[in-house]
């Protein structure tokens, strides 16, 4: 037994209005930002710009990559506490 996704044409039919609505929401928020005048430097704006570029990408895995854009980086050498056996 396997699980399969809907054919792309069917996805487009079923989710077109939802996609259109969400794109308009994004556009409206960006317009709202513009109407508010100039913004001071803010790292979140860079994240938004990067995420918008990912949306326009044709490579699958956009959701995962956008999640990583909004994530703090992981340091594999983070300082681990030691378990105290006296507790």
């Amino acid at each position, binding site marked *: *037994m*396997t*699980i399969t*996704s*809907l054919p792309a044409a069917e996805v487009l039919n079923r989710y077109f209005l939802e996609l259109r609505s969400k794109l308009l929401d994004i556009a409206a928020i960006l317009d709202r930002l513009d109407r508010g005048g100039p913004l001071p430097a803010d790292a979140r704006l860079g994240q938004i710009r990067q995420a918008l570029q990912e949306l326009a990408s044709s490579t699958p895995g956009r*959701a995962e990559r956008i999640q990583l854009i909004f*994530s*703090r980086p992981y340091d594999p050498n983070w300082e681990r*506490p030691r378990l105290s056996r006296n507790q």
Partner: protein
Amino acid sequence: MYYLDPHIHMISRVTDDYERLAQCGCLAVSEPAFWAGFDRASAYGFLDYFRHLVEFEPKRAAQFGLRHFCWLCINAKEAENVSLAREVIALIPQFLERPNVLGIGEIGLNKNTRNEATVFLEQVDLAARYDELILIHTPHLEDKYMGTRMILDMLRSDSRIRPEHVLIDHVEEHTIRLALEGGYWCAMTLYPTTKCTPQRAADMIEMYGTERILVNSAGDWGPSDPLAVPKFIQEMKRRGHSEAVIRRVVLENPLAFFRQSRRWPRDWEESLNGQLAIPAAEPAVAAVR
């Protein structure tokens, strides 16, 4: 369709929610110990909270034919206070033989601090010493990826911990693979704005299959939906997925994970098998990519 909600904070919900859960086919809820929305003044606040989870909520659930299970711990947010956390950890063993307790949880990280990591390790140690299942909260938003990686590092550092006894909760697109590849169970939380929608959860089932994946509502005192799991079921049906595939995620997987608890009520599950004709565990479903 019958289902279990493996993560819902019923202490924050009204009794009407139990009724609506039952009307939607929910057979049981599992309630991890969590933050109350404010920091408790002393360990005695937790003592009363644990009594609430093991005594009062099972009775409230039973009014509507639901089973109530729970998990005990000090949550990551209050774990920043290490001395308080140690007092609370010392209280937990006296509750571990209560019949509705499934294990230690939801332990984890919040802001990925050293104190949180210290208390996390001590609660993993508690679970190992008492041979308990572990339910893990992963942090929110920008802290989730780093925190999930740190949690996995700490779990791997304790050779007593068997991955199949651990559920990594609140996974999203950037953390689900980490949990599954480590051999852990994982759960997607259907929670407005800050976690995962039913649609994205269905996407991840299509990408990763059904093995060791659960979905939950994490309904609590914030904006949340206790009926989120039925919405996931509806989304899966909308896409034409079979009853067997959906049932695997919303019923058979939580049963398979919880069944590993020493206190799991097998008589209750056997009564379900008779009533619902739940088939013996079917092979997990692989995604076609």
